[in-house]
């Protein structure tokens, strides 16, 4: 069990990390965002519920680390037309919680809620999600080992989701 002080310090570091990730995504800083991942990172946006088996069922995104890199490289070309021009984005991150009562040396389970306002050529779109992370200290810095984004409406027909969610 962490002491109250060290728990507060960890929470403060995690909060800063999640805010930073949100800002990099909103501002399309693709390479800086990619650097937040561990080498074995998994980026998962399930469809049709929160608890499907991504090895068996379709997900909206189910990227291993090399596919995360491919996603970033496609965005970097400037010819990924769905993001050319880029969506204007601002997101709010809240309800940040440490999900492990007793974090040990392993990954840190963290969850948050997000509300994202997207303005694109099509229209303005509001997205809402539960985000579940496994964060890890790598060389003294927090990194994402996994990020699961559970869109509130992932069982419905949704518009193109081509920004980093």
């Amino acid at each position, binding site marked *: 069990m962490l002491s109250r002080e060290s728990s507060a310090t960890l929470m403060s570091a995690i909060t800063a990390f999640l805010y930073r990730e949100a800002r990099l995504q909103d501002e399309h800083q693709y390479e800086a965002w990619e650097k937040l991942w561990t080498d074995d990172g998994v980026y998962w946006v399930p469809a049709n519920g929160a608890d499907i088996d991504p*090895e068996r069922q379709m997900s909206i995104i189910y990227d291993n680390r090399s596919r995360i890199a*491919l996603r970033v490289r*496609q965005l970097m070309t400037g010819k990924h037309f769905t993001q050319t021009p880029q969506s204007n984005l601002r997101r709010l991150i809240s309800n940040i919680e440490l999900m492990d009562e007793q974090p040990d040396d392993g990954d840190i389970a963290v969850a948050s809620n997000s509300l994202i306002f997207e303005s694109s050529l099509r229209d303005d779109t509001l997205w809402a999600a539960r985000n579940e992370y496994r964060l890890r200290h790598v060389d003294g810095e927090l990194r994402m080992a996994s990020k699961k984004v559970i869109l509130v409406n992932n069982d419905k027909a949704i518009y*193109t989701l081509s920004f980093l969610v």
Partner: protein
Amino acid sequence: MNMMTGVSPWERLIRPDRVHGSLYTDPEIFEAELKNIWYRTWVYVGHESEVPNANDYVVKSIGPQSVIMTRDEQGKVNLLLNRCSHRGNQVCSFERGNARSFTCPFHSWTFANDGRLVGYAFPDGYEGQDKSQLALGRVTRVESYRGFVFGSFAADGLTLKEHLGGAAETIDRLVRASPEGEVEITAGFLKHRVKANWKFILENECDGYHPAFVHTSIFGVADSMIGKLYGGASTALTRDYGNGHTEIDLRPEFRKRDAPMSWFGTSEERLPDYTARMKAAYGDTAAREIMIDGTPHVMIFPNLFIAEIQMFVIQPLGVDDSVQHVTALQFKGAPDLNRRLRQQTMGSVGPAGFLLADDSEMYERCHRGVLARNPEWIFLGRGEKRQRQDELGFTVGHVTDEVPSRGIWTHYRKLMEPA
């Protein structure tokens, strides 16, 4: 019929090499399409493998109408309309499940999964009523081809086999990629909504002119072999099967490569289990041919698109509101292939797909574009002078030619014009 000129409005709007922009944006034309296309011709609804067991059901659609596909206790597949025969409430609110009956939550009317009304609350108020007159509505005709279930609201007309015509062979070709000769739809659907008319999607599916440009961002970074298939020097073909069905036939390019599984960017060595099962099922020679040719790229009018590794179902909800339902094709008896099919499908299609996010962007921009009134026309003349008949008499052209769009509009006009 325009009484002043004697010229049908459809003849004015649909010319051999161009169509009028209002065909995509006019709400009255959309309503006419529902009546003359979606609620009349054969429309793909679902696959038998989605209801494998007695009493399984899955909710599907024909246009904006909700359709429950059930397998009843006798094993028969039914297409029932999701509307209580009493006051119209939807009787089923879950996407799938297993149920012998559906009870309407409004007044507790209960229907068997073959559509029969089996009971209502406080029956003494319905003395003398013939229950058989109050069954759930059904899609009038239901037929399936190799597991693909289609429905038609017309009591008469072509059989499904007649409607599919030459395109039936593409489905034969598809199921041969399974060592057991069967496709299974088991991976769940991504549902991708676009603010665009459904015909932009329909026409794009066999448009071989756009990939080199729309998909340049992913071809450039992914070492994809796909780009070359759609280049100026490609020997691949576009084909019009009639009845609105169109194809991009990539076999000439795959046969030049002469390498099994190259169509899927892989090899026999990387799929040893699949290769062994295919050879056992078809013999070495036929298995090799199947694994060189690959699976088809065919758009079955108006809503079933088989895109080599995945299947799309196009659903129109409004004149500028459409949904693409998409899932990985799964081949019975091919677990190692199926895993790759799911992975590739997830990467390339759906709302965040490397390919479909850009296609869908084009649909939406086209829809906004044609709201401009000049020029009034969409020009579809590419390859008109060099198209020819293949050995079976179907019109074919270069892979980048607009043979498919012209075929689609020829059929569309026949459906929309009063008989």
